[in-house]
């Protein structure tokens, strides 16, 4: 008994944060800074800032496996190899699919990273606010449930996280893309500047082009170095120049001396106490030893990634919650969304032969949504934004067919004759109840846990939107003087944008939502979910900044409630 009592004391914290990615890192920072003793549980390995970014400074020819991924890596990563991100320089970030399988009722590309920092080390860093259009769309067109908050509820939290994380960008006063607290913007290049000017003039400023708003520092910020323009962010930044758990939130949380990080800790379920009707802690499987252990806390923040968090709730069953924790509404696992992309247009820009770039900017341009607002009406709901940019490659149109030899080499060693410019759409996907995940007990992962099954598809609204994503891009490029414009649609499956969201949506009504307006389970007051799972809709903007703001807001609320004795 004594041993157990001691163990229980030793394993008891004020708060447990499940996950160490973008939102988990924020939860750890906010809760520790507000005085709580916090345990952060991460299912994968530890990654120490800078020291563990082994490939960060390597030249292209310095990689060991001259060639490609090994046959063994391709065998163990059948999902991660479906698209570009998994390669030798970044291989440690991506999961071994065989160890953590899932069931695809329909194709869903699930990209995952199990390590301290989670996808904060691998993300695309584009950081955009949602606007009231986004918070109101569900209520207006009747798809999905109404968001329980509006822009005014989250404005100061956007301010707060932007100021700390460091987001560079240009204020534009565009209603669908509210301005933030920006560091100086990165520069548009000469072609992008020309396209911006011509495009905004042609459309009389009913469409705008701005530099991407990105979590890359353009000036030193809070002890972190500024971007060195290497465009190698995906390897981890040795200058700490982009926001990650390691570069930003973790050091702040560690500085409080109130944070304990435990890697290799798979949270299997949240332990429910039927007497208090609250969570009393979590059951952890040690990923290395398979040993199980319990940890206890007054509050639990679930930040295990959209589908990781929902899996955890679905797997936390009890007499009071037979279908998963907080699932009385039956909405848990439903309304899975992602953005849809990989279509747009590109062409060549003439007249800039005397210009070139210096440095490699890990950022592009952004054209915020302009569809289905004001006089712009489409035959589908919601809309899309564009990301893209201009560059001068090495393509030479005068090179003879299959040329070789001295002159050929001389030409190929020079930049291309002309610049090219492309626009790729990022479209909103509607919430559909039937796009869902559930637990598949017929399979087990490496640790004996059941797996997630995913049943999700894009539908007609998305298909119609893709037509415009191509055609509008071509029209805008042509209006901007771009030549040889061609459209493309490289096909897209849910999961590919790695912006999966929904499945534990927020809402005012406990009958049709899982979380309340504070990201708190309607039914279990000391459990909060503040990652992508909470989203009632996805807008068309990159979402991570919104997860950060919602997390900081929920932490503030949780600690206040805790102090009032309400939790």
């Amino acid at each position: 008994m004594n041993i157990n009592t001691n163990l229980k004391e030793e394993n008891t914290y004020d708060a447990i944060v499940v996950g160490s990615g973008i939102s988990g890192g924020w939860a750890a920072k906010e809760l520790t800074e507000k005085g709580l003793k916090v345990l952060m549980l991460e299912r994968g390995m530890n990654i120490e800032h800078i020291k563990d970014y082994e490939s960060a400074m390597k030249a292209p020819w310095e990689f060991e496996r001259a060639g490609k991924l090994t046959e063994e890596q391709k065998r163990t990563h059948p999902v991660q190899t479906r698209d570009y991100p998994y390669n030798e320089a970044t291989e440690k970030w991506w999961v071994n699919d065989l160890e953590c399988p899932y069931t695809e009722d329909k194709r869903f590309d699930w990209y995952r990273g199990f390590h301290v920092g989670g996808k904060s080390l691998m993300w695309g860093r584009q950081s955009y606010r949602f606007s009231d259009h986004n918070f109101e769309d569900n209520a207006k067109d009747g798809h999905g449930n109404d968001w329980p908050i509006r822009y005014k509820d989250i404005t100061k939290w956007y301010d707060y996280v932007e100021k700390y994380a460091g987001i560079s960008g240009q204020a534009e006063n565009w209603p669908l893309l509210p301005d933030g607290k920006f560091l100086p913007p990165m520069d548009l290049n000469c072609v992008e500047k020309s396209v911006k000017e011509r495009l905004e003039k042609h459309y009389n400023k009913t469409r705008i082009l701005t530099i991407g708003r990105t979590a890359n520092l353009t000036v030193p910020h809070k002890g972190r170095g500024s971007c060195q323009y290497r465009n190698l962010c995906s390897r981890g930044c040795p200058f700490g120049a982009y926001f990650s758990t390691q570069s930003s939130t973790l050091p702040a949380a560690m500085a409080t001396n109130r944070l304990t990080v435990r890697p290799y800790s798979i949270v299997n379920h949240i332990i429910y106490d039927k007497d208090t009707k609250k969570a009393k802690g979590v059951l952890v499987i040690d990923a290395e030893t398979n040993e199980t252990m319990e940890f206890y806390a007054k509050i639990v923040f679930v930040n295990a990634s959209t589908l990781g968090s929902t899996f955890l709730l679905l797997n936390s069953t009890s007499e009071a919650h037979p279908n998963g924790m907080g699932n009385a509404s039956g909405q848990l696992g439903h309304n899975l969304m992602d953005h849809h992309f990989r279509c747009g247009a590109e062409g060549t820009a003439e007249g800039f032969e005397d210009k070139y770039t210096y440095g490699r900017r890990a950022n592009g341009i952004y054209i915020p949504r302009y569809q289905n607002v004001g006089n712009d009406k489409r035959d589908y709901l919601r809309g899309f934004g564009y990301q893209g940019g201009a560059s001068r490659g090495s393509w030479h149109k005068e090179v003879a067919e299959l040329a070789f030899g001295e002159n050929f080499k001389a030409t190929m060693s020079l930049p291309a004759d002309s610049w090219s410019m492309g626009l790729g759409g990022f479209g909103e996907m509607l919430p559909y109840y039937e796009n869902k995940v559930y637990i598949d007990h017929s399979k087990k992962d490496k640790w004996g846990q059941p797996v997630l099954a995913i049943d999700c598809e894009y539908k007609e609204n998305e298909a119609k939107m893709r037509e415009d994503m191509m055609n509008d891009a071509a029209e805008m490029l042509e209006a901007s003087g771009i030549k040889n414009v061609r459209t493309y649609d490289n096909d897209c499956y849910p999961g590919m944008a790695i912006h999966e969201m929904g499945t534990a949506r927020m809402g005012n009504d406990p009958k049709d939502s899982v979380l309340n307006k504070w990201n708190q389970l309607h039914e279990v007051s000391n459990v909060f979910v503040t990652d992508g799972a909470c989203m009632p809709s996805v807008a068309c903007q990159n979402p991570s900044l919104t997860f950060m703001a919602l997390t900081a807001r929920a932490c503030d609320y949780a600690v206040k409630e805790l102090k009032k004795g309400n939790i």
Partner: protein
Amino acid sequence: MNRREALKSVAFLMGSAISATTMGVLFESFTLPEKEKNQVSFSATDEEILAEFADIILPTTASSPGAKAAGLGAFIPMIIRDCYPAKMQEIFASGLKAMQYQCSKEFNKDFLSMSITERQKLVTSLQEEAIAADKAPSFFLIARDLTILGYYSSEIGCTQAREYLPVPGRYDGSATYTPGQKAWATN
């Protein structure tokens, strides 16, 4: 970025300089079926021939050493064996043999004994054949593609033929381009 990734980005920059065959192989992340792996092998002499062949495609010039110095003799067979499907491996290997046969028939000597001018003449005939065949997969086509890709992702290609800038420190998107200025090695 591994070599394959480096090749992809170089290939992307090259645009139409690289054949559709090679683009397809490099941009597909397929796994070769067991039975298709390493259908062909290459001897030390093959590697020497490939190095000399590559040096005809991208020779040493005043500005920089050529493909042979950049290690293409070993690089080409490695990529063929690791990345190319069996059928293409066969096309490549039989094409290499056919080229050697052509050397003895038309020049009455083996490839390695031929002068640079003779090799250029030979490669020109292979080039004409490839154009006539509408760029169907062939030894010439694949060897040329891999020479270009391997060279511009090698240290010599990146730092001497082109300019490699590991830590630019700033971004200027309207920098003046001086005629003759080399292309950046990475993007």
